[in-house]
């Protein structure tokens, strides 16, 4: 809570078990008691869900103005009042007996399968049965039994016998995620959580229900029966999947990550995360992981090599050569800094870019100015009078940002406007006003936006660079309205890489390369005479130069060439490739030297989330022999004779902190013009696309249970196009370019007639690989 919010709230003093406690008005008794260190047992209560009062475990005696309630009250439903006296189980025999009675009821139908239950050892029911239960049951009857388990989705399994019907999961799905796909069915002791027959629990946030289940009723399919909580070593971590910045917890047993949970951070993800962040970690222990350096031999094959061998070979190949560096969007702040320093100091070039995706010069200028200086946070969303989404689908591209907006939509009907091809399910849940655009025409739509104030929040996705002039229109809009900007890339490393100068036009700390004073600043800190002044190349330019033999070598770190373009891999074939990778990939397959690096759980470091907020994490797996990129770069630089002196993550972090941020003259934005609208013939449309949260992304590999809840790909068209094609909802249509075609079921939705939309990287719908484009270009659309 911000200090300003605190002063507005009236404070109330109550007496609980004889102790006075002062809390803000509206605080529930159970929460006020916590403040005194008095733990009232509970199941259905959850601080982020609306009170239910269903389990009745938290009964206490309450008296207001000397008048006692005739019966004990659920402390999770009653806010404190002045002159209230509360007696919990500690001082009221009635409350104590009531609580023991409820616990006995909860246990009569609960199976005694704790020894095989995932929750055993970290189970609120188990713990509170110890504190509030009786040693032996008085129940001599027949326990309720159900078939177990029931799969309510591919990743969540329901054991109805264990369920205490607290309704946390159903309330979470309805109130927090907006996916009311699970409900309570039946009644009495046969009441149970259920799904609609034809609509399984396909929510991007379903894993949270497993985490907040106070018993072992909901379990994750991938973790079920794998481990006991007391065998796990837990490490607070940061999620590497997107720029939302979730705090997470990594649970490791004997060097292997067995599960990840949402961590708590009230400023960022509260207590939630998305299913990708929770369950997409099998890539960490994939058989494709690389354990030793690899050198391509005379036979054209990769062979295992020792570190000195591999470093010597790489050093020889790079020393004194023209080299470009592709950093990728998943580097930590420290690793990105090391690449930046390595490029400038050791390679003597500005040819470095973290953008392993579509990009433009307009974007580079936007990033070095507006994005770099954006100070917008989650709290600004909480207080916004309007949220505008530009080239950004929060549910798919930054799921916790979605939850934060959704919270305000639920709470106070926050107005949301989206400039997009169509209203996605996320936009529908946000009740967003759709401004439908044909890809390429975003600039005009953005310029036409009205009614923004300094309390409005404009969230720009990285994809907006795909529409020429759109980012320029954003800059104009911000200047006109004083609205707040949030630039939200998809990947966790991009904001940090920008800050670290892993891009041609910036040095670390946001220093413009073009500014001599900034160069002097950094050169002095790095102890070198000067830094390269030649304008650097972007990702596409590096690839083109490599292909044209204008570069001798390219350092490629954690990049999937198909994220950039269909030609990217081919463009690397003519050059020397040094690959920094965690696992075998398309790049390692053509690389000359492969240097294995540590994956997220094997190293320390930090990300900057979209707000620019540091998300530091430490090693979850102590036993790992792999090293962070910066350590290897440091060894390589030493081998090449121009050291960068970054021996450890901690040392690098210290150097970054010492260097600080640029306080000199800021770069100014160079606007770009938008392209003219494309002319369409009959049977043609302009393609739009984005990546769905769950798709064929590399980091989601090896987790079929997660993939099972991915939304199926469709080809979205308008009603009038459907009519002219003569297709009905669900009938197949084919979208083609000269390169290839994609055939999918049509989904008819409100969108511009000139538009067709495809998922960018889903099963059966990979626009870059198949069509060679991401959007903004003409495709043909025909009935299949």
């Amino acid at each position, binding site marked *: 809570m911000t200090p300003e919010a605190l002063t507005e709230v009236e404070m109330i003093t109550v007496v609980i078990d004889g102790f006075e406690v002062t809390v803000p008005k509206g605080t529930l008794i159970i929460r006020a008691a916590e403040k005194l260190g008095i733990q009232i047992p509970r199941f259905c209560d959850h601080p982020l869900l609306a*009170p*239910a*009062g*269903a*389990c*009745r*475990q938290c*009964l206490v005696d309450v008296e207001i103005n000397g008048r006692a309630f*005739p*019966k*004990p009250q659920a402390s999770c*439903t009653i806010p404190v009042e002045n002159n209230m006296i509360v007696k919990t189980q500690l001082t009221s025999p009635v409350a104590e*007996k*009531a609580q*023991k*009675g*409820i616990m*006995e*009821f*909860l246990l*009569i*139908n609960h199976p005694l399968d704790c020894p095989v239950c995932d929750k055993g050892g970290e189970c609120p029911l188990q713990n509170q049965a110890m504190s509030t239960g009786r040693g032996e049951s*008085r*129940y*001599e*009857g*027949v326990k*309720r039994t159900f078939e177990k388990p029931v799969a309510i989705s591919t990743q969540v399994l329901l054991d109805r016998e264990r369920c*205490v*019907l607290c309704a946390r999961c159903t309330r979470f799905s309805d109130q927090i995620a907006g996916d009311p796909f699970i*409900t*309570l*069915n*039946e*009644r*009495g*002791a*046969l*009441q149970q959580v259920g799904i609609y027959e034809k609509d399984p629990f396909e929510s991007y946030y379903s894993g949270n229900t497993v985490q907040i289940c106070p018993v072992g009723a909901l379990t994750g399919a991938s973790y079920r029966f794998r481990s006991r909580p007391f065998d796990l070593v837990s490490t607070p971590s940061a999620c590497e999947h997107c720029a939302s910045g979730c705090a997470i917890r990594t649970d490791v047993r004997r060097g292997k990550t067995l599960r990840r949970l949402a961590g708590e951070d009230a400023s960022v993800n509260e207590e939630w995360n998305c299913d990708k962040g929770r369950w997409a970690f099998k890539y960490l222990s994939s058989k494709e992981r690389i354990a030793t350096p690899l050198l391509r031999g005379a036979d054209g094959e990769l062979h295992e090599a020792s570190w000195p061998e591999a470093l010597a070979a790489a050093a020889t190949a790079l020393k004194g050569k023209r080299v470009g560096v592709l950093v990728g969007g998943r580097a930590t702040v420290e690793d990105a800094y090391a690449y930046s320093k390595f490029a400038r100091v050791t390679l003597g070039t500005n040819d470095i870019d973290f953008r392993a995706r579509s990009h433009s010069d307009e974007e580079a200028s936007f990033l070095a100015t507006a994005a770099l200086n954006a100070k917008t946070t989650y709290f600004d969303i909480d207080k916004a009078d309007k949220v505008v989404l530009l080239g950004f689908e929060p549910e798919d591209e930054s799921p916790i940002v979605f939850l934060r907006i959704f919270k305000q939509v639920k709470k106070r009907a926050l107005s949301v406007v989206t400039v997009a091809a169509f209203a996605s399910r996320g936009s529908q849940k946000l009740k967003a006003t759709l401004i439908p655009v044909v890809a390429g025409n975003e600039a005009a739509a953005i310029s036409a936006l009205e009614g923004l104030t300094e309390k409005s929040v404009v969230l720009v996705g990285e994809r907006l660079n795909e529409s020429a002039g759109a980012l320029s229109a954003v800059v104009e809009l911000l200047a006109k309205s004083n609205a707040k900007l949030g630039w939200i890339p998809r990947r966790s490393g991009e904001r940090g890489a920008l800050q670290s100068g892993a891009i041609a036009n910036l040095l670390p700390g946001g220093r413009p390369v073009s500014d001599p004073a900034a160069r002097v600043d950094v050169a002095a800190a790095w102890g070198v005479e000067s830094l390269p002044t030649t304008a650097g190349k972007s990702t596409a330019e590096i690839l083109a130069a490599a292909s044209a033999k204008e570069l001798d070598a390219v350092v490629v770190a954690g990049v999937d060439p198909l994220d950039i373009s269909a030609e990217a891999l081919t463009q690397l074939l003519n050059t020397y490739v040094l690959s920094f990778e965690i696992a075998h990939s398309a790049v390692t397959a053509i690389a000359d030297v492969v240097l294995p690096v540590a994956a997220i759980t094997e190293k320390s470091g930090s990300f900057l989330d979209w707000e620019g907020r540091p998300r530091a994490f430490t090693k979850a797996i102590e036993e790992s022999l792999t090293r962070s990129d910066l350590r290897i770069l440091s060894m390589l630089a030493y081998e090449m004779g121009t050291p960068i002196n970054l021996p450890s993550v901690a040392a690098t972090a210290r150097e970054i902190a010492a260097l600080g941020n640029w306080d000199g003259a800021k770069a100014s934005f160079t606007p770009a013009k938008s392209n003219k609208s494309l002319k369409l013939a009959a049977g043609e449309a302009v393609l739009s696309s984005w990546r769905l949260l769950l798709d064929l992304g590399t980091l989601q590999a090896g987790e079929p249970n997660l993939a099972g809840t991915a939304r199926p790909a469709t080809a979205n068209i308008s009603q009038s196009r459907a009519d002219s094609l003569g297709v009905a909802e669900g009938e197949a249509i084919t979208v083609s370019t000269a390169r290839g075609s994609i055939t999918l079921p049509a989904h008819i939705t409100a969108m511009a007639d000139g538009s067709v939309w495809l998922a960018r990287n889903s099963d059966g719908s990979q626009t870059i690989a198949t069509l060679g484009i991401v959007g903004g270009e003409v495709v043909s659309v025909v009935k299949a």
Partner: protein
Amino acid sequence: MTKLTPVLSAHWDEADSFTIGAYKRHGGYGAVVKALEMEPDAVIQLVKDSGLRGRGGAGFPTGMKWGFIPQGDNKDHYLVVNADESEPGTCKDMPLLMANPHVLIEGIIIASYAIRAGYAFIYIRGEVTHVVRRLQAAIAEAYAAGHLGKNIQGKGYDLELVLHVGAGAYICGEETALLDSLEGFRGQPRLRPPFPAIAGLYAKPTVVNNVESISSVPSIINNGAEWFSAMGTEKSKGYTLYSLSGHVANPGQFEAPLGITLRELLELAGGIRPGHQLKFWTPGGSSTPIFTAEHLDVALDYEGVSAAGSMLGTKALQVFDETTCIVRAVLRWTEFYKHESCGKCTPCREGTWWLVQILRDLEAGIGTAADLDKLLDVVDNIMGRSFCALADGAASPIISSLKYFREEYMQHLTTGGCPFDPVASTVFATAGSR
């Protein structure tokens, strides 16, 4: 027959009593004209002055409930009539709606006018198809005659009346569960506050009243508050429907002033069935603690019954003679509550599940005196611990039967089974058998 005060039931014996013609023949829809010429607040005041209290069981003053609706709030207001009569033994609203549906409709118009509602709903239980059809027909008649819809009887007041048929759940008689069900959700009680008067149906200010309460309103408008409050006792004013069922010679509905005793009602009903004696009875349906012959002279008004340790409830007097096994009767009721528990809260859901198993054992003669203590202790953990009053209702018959008939429970345990012949308690049993 001096004790009877037939108002609602005055013309039930006429063959066409349920038609609009018959209703009008006896002055029906006259009260509406009178009420629509009054200020809405004056109608509320009149009902307050009459002392009418809710006839659905809790006895909350009806006029006061109407007065809780915030006025001038620019929100829609709703009147919801609770016709989900499902309590074992309770049989007053259904006969009333069968024989005289128009009195309810007239009461609805007046009540809706008083609370400034433009929509009213009747939530009726789904099993009573014949009553549903009569009510549907009556509503259609009322619309056709201009008593419902736009500009009612030319007085410039609009009201739409919707009959909603429930799917047969006892919990939907609980007013907030009823509202959830009416909104299309599964019927489960809502957390209060907010109370329905502030945020009820569709989160709008809502009055939920029992059929009989609303049906009593036209007579108050016609005859005045003094006429109404002249009947009954000091704090329980007016007339009401008492429903006698079970082992009585002439079961049925008896409309009498509040405060009549069972002894007087039994006289009117021809006494206990021939050859038998009263053993126990419920004053207001199965969820009110039972009484015995020692309570024959308890005044059947809100205060009198409460002082004697029970509740007036719905004035459903289920009468049992000496052929009835108390354990069996209590088990049947408990099975009902287990079946009807909505499942939302733990003590009701799990408690009733357990109670049935204990009582089945006891009826079969399995157990010891310690099991009776356990039963009482389990009941103590249910009573006053649940989300709504359903579980309290389930606990009442057990506690009260053990209070009066503990010996009979023990008899089951010592003889190893039920000492009663279940056939003897049926209506088709030969008089005097056993």
